[in-house]
């Protein structure tokens, strides 16, 4: 077992924090790197000393990386500002590379994503599948750039060793996108399955990602490679979401593709009229409120909005995503990295449910 320090950027985030916990439990010295100290509270139960750094300042990263053998780079743009997100994701990766080089870091493990392949419409994607150009999608675009920067950094000799990991749908304790949000939407009755939820969902329990990171940190075979990481057994969206529905005793309603497309078309057709009506509606609402109609109007409006908003927010690319049949092939991770998923969907959901109850997110 190599006796080296691993610095983890984005360690306050859902994946970065869990990676820090798992690497620490597996006897690596871990230095969680956070933007602000309060955000490190989740990790405070461990005897790990967090360091503070700004991903947009090379000097602060260099100080945080000092003495580290490996940097696991998990930080990315996750704000409401798209331009800022791209800056953090792309320039942040560039800064991490420069700071790692200057600090003498030997290995960079980059947390990439299956999103770099876009939605190619293939039944199987592996590491040889070319990136899909998706200029309209900032996340895909910037994660593609970041991954390229990382792998090029090894070719150009800035950092000796680089490994990129590409996990799919990462869920588990503290996951906003694939655990907390589905739970909240089920509770608010705004979660619908597309086309009975028959699309393929490439689940990845967060501990499987952390396990892959451990291997990427410690196995020489990993160097210079990128690896797709999933739970290994794709399921359909209905099966994935059914776990959450069962936790809450809720049903999983479905919407047909035609419904969604119709709502999309309807949105385009009616938006100008709706905006005009909203302007007029303010005056009307004021008048109605005076005679007691306001609450009834608001109730009816909210019920309608709840039903339609989800469909109207569904873009064509989201439909592709949820209806897709793509399976991400982890053969390379298995054969080269020695990766084998250690937690299956049932066990992962079991742990997730216990965390959800502990955290009071479900009763």
């Amino acid at each position, binding site marked *: 077992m190599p006796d080296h320090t691993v610095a983890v950027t984005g360690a306050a985030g859902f994946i970065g924090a869990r990676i820090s916990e798992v690497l620490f*439990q597996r*006897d690596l010295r871990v230095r969680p790197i956070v933007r602000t*100290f309060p955000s490190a509270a989740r990790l*405070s139960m461990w005897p790990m000393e967090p360091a503070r750094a700004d991903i947009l300042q090379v000097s602060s990263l260099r100080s945080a990386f000092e003495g580290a053998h490996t940097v696991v780079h998990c930080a990315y743009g996750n704000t409401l500002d798209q331009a800022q997100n791209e800056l953090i994701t792309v320039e942040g990766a560039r800064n991490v590379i420069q700071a790692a080089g200057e600090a003498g870091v030997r290995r960079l493990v980059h947390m990439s994503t299956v999103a770099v392949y876009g939605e190619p419409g293939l039944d199987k994607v592996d590491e040889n599948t070319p990136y899909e150009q998706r200029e309209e999608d900032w996340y895909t675009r910037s994660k593609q750039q970041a991954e390229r920067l990382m792998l090029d950094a090894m070719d150009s000799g800035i950092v000796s060793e680089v490994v990129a990991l590409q996990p799919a749908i990462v869920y588990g304790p503290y996951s906003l996108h694939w655990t907390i949000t589905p739970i909240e939407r089920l509770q608010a009755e705004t979660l619908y399955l597309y086309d009975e939820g028959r699309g393929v969902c490439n689940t990845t329990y967060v501990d499987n990602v952390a396990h892959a990171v451990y291997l990427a940190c410690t196995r020489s075979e990993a160097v210079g490679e990128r690896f797709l990481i999933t739970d290994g057994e794709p399921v359909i969206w209905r099966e994935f979401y059914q776990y959450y529905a069962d936790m809450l005793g809720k049903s999983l309603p479905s919407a047909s593709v035609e419904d969604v497309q119709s709502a999309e078309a309807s949105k385009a057709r009616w938006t100008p009229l709706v905006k005009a009506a909203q302007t007029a509606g303010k005056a009307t609402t004021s008048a109605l409120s005076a005679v007691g109609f306001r609450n009834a109007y608001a109730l009816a409006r909210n019920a309608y909005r709840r039903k339609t908003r989800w469909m109207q927010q569904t873009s064509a690319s989201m439909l592709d995503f949820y209806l897709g049949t793509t399976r991400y092939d982890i053969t390379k991770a298995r054969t080269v990295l020695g990766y084998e998923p250690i937690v299956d969907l049932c066990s992962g959901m079991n742990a997730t449910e216990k965390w959800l109850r502990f955290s009071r997110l479900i009763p």
Partner: protein
Amino acid sequence: MEDQASMRSGAQPPSEKVYQVAVVGCGAISERAHLPALSKMTSRFSVATLVDTDTQRTEELAEQYAPGASRLSNYEGLAGRAEVALVATPPHTHQRIVCSLLEQGLHVLVEKPLARTREECETIAEAARASGRSVFVGYNRRYFLGWRFLKVVSDSNLAGPLLSLDAEEGSPFDWPVGSAAIFNPEIAGGGTMLDTGVHELDLVLWLASEKPRVLFYEDDNRGGVEANGHAILADGDRTFRLRLSRTHTLQNRVVANFLNAVITVECWDPTAIDIFSWDPVVERSLKKAHTDLRQTLGADPTVEEWTGVWNSLQSGVWFIDEAAIQAIDLLGQMYSMRQPMDQPWVGVARELEGVR
């Protein structure tokens, strides 16, 4: 009988004693609570000195709250500059700083917790006795209307005896700390139970008729400091359950079950109280007591806290906050009985063991 209005600041005759105050530690609690409160009490306190190693902070706060105050970067030369010191520094510094200030002849109001361990508290108490100066501890919730109402109801037996108390306080940690010291077990000495749970322990000690015993304690500490903790204490037949978190949102309220009523108070809203009794006579009595108390207690708990300091200093009677020492003693007992919290999502999968 003392005029109720005279309990509050700002209503004092100009001839009253004005104490010179040194603020040691210019972090968030000084900025958010103490300096605004002291600036409302200029007939009783005058901020003479601001002390912090971060000179930019002393300048910022002096400019905002005490333009005439001197700015220092250490606390060792305060004799003659101030009569009372506020110590609002991290808990691991309390023993050293408070003892120094007492030796310099200052009275001290120190932010909770008094110190990290019973031994550190005793050292401070000994220094206070030797110097003849008083030590107050900043438990400003003692001046929350809700928390004080529980004390009034308990003492007056208006709702019958207190049977049990259930307190929960938690949210994702966002206090603007400037270093990771608060998460370092050697420095901090504890986690959320020491930092926040002492408020609830102080309430328990306030309501208990005898020193409570610890029945059960669990937390999630795995070599660092606890981010989540859960304790059950007992005083005779009644139980006190405390649950604290730095990772997720809890109810953030205290529910006190009396024989004839349930009273709920909020942790963060000084005035939020819910009174329920199945006996209309009891409910009316409680609501009247609540109204009476509201008229005697000022709206700003920190102003009330400093008013208590002023009154105590004026009395000339030496004071040490014994309850604050007992709270740390209880906490030490809790830590010594610690059981690991059941969090199956935290450990690594057994399959990993074979991969090492």
